[in-house]
């Protein structure tokens, strides 16, 4: 598939009338300098990456760019943040992108540098996070020769990324790089990998200052989706069904955040009064403290959200994809909903899991604005008093709760205290496991982009580097990594990165001496045989580890009576702070809708009121994941 092309493969983007020529247009730049110049033109303000032979020309160009463009205060315009491991760089770029909505950029070397980047790229793909990852590659002539530090990155990443470019023709480098940014942020966002052989980085090029690859197929489909507008008939059909509904509910996913549609959602709810539940990825898309907010639904959703899903007769899915953590049994999901409407930017998600009665493929913000305008213009007023009262009763009667009298420190209490002190305004990242679910359940999120979690992939080790990236995106925000004792070990090398760059972020480890989430499943489905999930014989002293990496504030909380004061001190500390809390190792995540179970079979545990006795599921462990 490498035919020699006779046609020019790049075409300049049509210059808007009166557009100024790029000041460097026509200048002689090396390939590496082109890379850095396109970064600068795209507004990149921070890079994350680790050096190595195959990327040295780009690193040197970054050095020179920063040296010649330093601000009056000596600040570098494009600092390069060096992690302990390239996986850290990838999650930093992802954390930056999630917290800011901008494209995160990572730059790594060939071979092992690039393969260490596979996990963050896949993670970002699965959660639709915009990233551009530049990898060095062995020189063009050496590709395929099993050269030192050669890996088939374009093959490997093809299966994981939104797109991969292997740049073998230097004259296409500039347009390719610019196109990578367009691809990463357009349509359904995602990571784009650009693999650049070392000789291409060293090539002598003339900078054009404009131009992208044509990508006719992608651009045509994108244009069709973006043109997609709701007709009057579409709106009429939507409202005809909504007006029939007595118990309509909105199910909002990460797409609302990616689309910048949170305000439009707020306005839609103000106009028509539909209560809102969100997915794990959608937390913050709607202020969780709102009376109409039901917090998260799904496997570990709130009981009241899941009961509302059981009770609703109309469901509006916004940028949400009915995944197996939400609709484990698609046919039993929202069983009373006579009408399901779905809006998504990705045509492949419409009806993928659950048939829908109405759908629209297009930008979410515009769709919501259009629906709200149509409904208002046609005087749509819904009588939802009974439903609102029902929702309020569900929230009251099935509220989140736990053993408040236990002598052991309950993780939920730690999170409640953090929530009280931050007012639901902190930026939170997490590892993966019970602590992640507790943070999702017990913390409030007043706005989008405050909640950074590895949702689809569920990658342990995400929390710490993502928090670092987020702190670069929002230097003045209070950023807290809520981590697990096992998850944080995966990228614990990044503790040092926190202090190296003097980031004031807070690292909280909820230590239950092992892989709590795994133990919870082993308790439920494997008769409590804690194979490989107990760490009571492990010797790590997290406090010494944090101190060794330069944390001036590093404490262990072991007594319940010290909780409030210690948490307050931790959050108030001006620099990097590390708090390990020895929690009740048996604390569980409730509610729980077992894998492959329906919401009617939800287990609410001992402290959250259930509506009915749980019905045991009949699927054996082999059928579950």
């Amino acid at each position: 598939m490498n035919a020699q092309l006779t046609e020019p493969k790049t075409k300049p983007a049509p210059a808007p009338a009166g557009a100024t020529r790029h000041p460097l247009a026509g200048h002689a730049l090396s390939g590496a300098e082109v890379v850095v110049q396109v970064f600068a033109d795209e507004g990149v303000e921070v890079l994350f990456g680790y050096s190595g032979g195959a990327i040295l020309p780009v690193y040197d160009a970054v050095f020179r760019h920063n040296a010649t463009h330093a601000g009056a205060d000596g600040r570098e315009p494009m600092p390069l943040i060096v992690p302990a491991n390239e996986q850290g760089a990838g999650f930093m770029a992802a954390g930056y992108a999630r917290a800011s909505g901008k494209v995160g950029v990572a730059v790594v070397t060939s071979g092992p540098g690039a393969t260490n980047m596979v996990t963050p790229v896949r993670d970002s793909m699965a959660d639709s996070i915009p990233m551009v990852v530049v990898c060095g590659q062995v020189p063009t002539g050496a590709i395929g020769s099993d050269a030192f530090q050669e890996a088939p990155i374009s093959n490997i990443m093809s299966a994981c990324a939104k797109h991969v470019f292997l740049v073998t023709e230097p004259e296409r480098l500039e347009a390719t790089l610019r196109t990578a940014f367009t691809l990463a942020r357009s349509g359904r966002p995602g990571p784009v990998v650009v693999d650049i052989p070392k000789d291409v980085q060293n090539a002598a090029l003339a900078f054009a200052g404009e131009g992208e690859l044509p990508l006719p197929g992608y651009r045509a489909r994108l244009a069709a989706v973006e043109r997609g507008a709701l007709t009057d008939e579409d709106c009429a059909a939507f409202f005809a069904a909504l007006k029939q509904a007595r118990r309509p509910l909105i199910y909002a996913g990460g797409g609302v955040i990616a689309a910048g549609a949170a305000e439009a959602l707020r306005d839609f709810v103000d106009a028509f009064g539909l209560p809102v539940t969100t997915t794990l990825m959608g937390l913050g898309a709607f202020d969780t403290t709102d009376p109409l907010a039901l917090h998260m639904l799904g496997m570990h959703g709130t009981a009241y959200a899941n009961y509302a899903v059981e009770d609703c007769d109309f469901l509006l899915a916004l940028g949400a994809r009915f995944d197996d953590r939400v609709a484990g049994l698609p046919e039993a999901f929202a069983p009373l909903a006579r009408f399901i409407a779905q809006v998504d930017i990705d045509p492949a998600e419409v009806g993928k899991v659950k048939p829908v009665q109405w759908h629209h493929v297009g930008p979410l913000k515009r769709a919501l604005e259009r629906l709200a305008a149509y409904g208002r213009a046609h005087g749509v007023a819904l009588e939802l008093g009974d439903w609102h009262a029902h929702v309020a009763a569900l929230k009251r009667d099935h509220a989140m709760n736990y053993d408040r009298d236990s002598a052991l420190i309950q993780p939920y209490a730690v999170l409640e205290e953090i929530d009280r002190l931050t007012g639901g305004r902190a930026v939170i990242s997490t590892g993966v496991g019970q602590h992640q679910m507790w943070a999702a359940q017990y913390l409030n999120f007043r706005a989008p982009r405050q909640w950074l979690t590895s949702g689809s992939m569920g990658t342990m080790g995400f929390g710490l580097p993502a928090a670092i990236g987020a702190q670069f995106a929002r230097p003045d925000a209070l950023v807290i990594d809520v981590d697990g004792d096992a998850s944080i070990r995966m990228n614990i090398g990044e503790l040092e990165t926190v202090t190296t760059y003097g980031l004031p972020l807070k690292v909280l480890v909820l230590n239950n001496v092992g892989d709590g989430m795994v133990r919870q499943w082993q308790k439920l489905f494997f008769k409590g045989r804690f194979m490989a999930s107990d760490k009571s014989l492990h010797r790590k002293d997290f406090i010494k580890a944090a101190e060794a990496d330069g944390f001036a504030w590093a404490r262990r909380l072991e007594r319940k009576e010290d909780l409030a004061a210690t948490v307050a001190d931790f959050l108030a500390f001006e620099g990097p702070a590390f708090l390990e809390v020895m929690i009740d190792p048996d604390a569980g995540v409730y509610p729980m809708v077992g894998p492959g179970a329906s919401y009617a079979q939800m287990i609410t545990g001992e402290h959250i009121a259930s509506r009915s006795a749980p019905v045991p599921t009949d699927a054996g462990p082999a059928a579950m994941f």
Partner: protein
Amino acid sequence: MTMSTAMKHTLSILLQNEAGALVRVAGLFAARGHNIDALSVVATDDPAVSRLTLVVHGDDARLAQILSQTRRLVDVLTVEHTATDEAT
């Protein structure tokens, strides 16, 4: 993954002739559990474009899904479902 309702579907895909483009199409089908029964790649009048003809089997829902997923690939220009036959 095997499919119970085994109708054979012929898909015709116009593909930009980029490095790795064929691998991405074949990889997508493999990753989504489709076994490719037959595949041919031919040049077109446009040297930058190849035509892939691909035979898979599966029910309508699976076919619709793989068609949409194929349209998500950046190098893919168009995808058409050109024939349905009884599987043998």
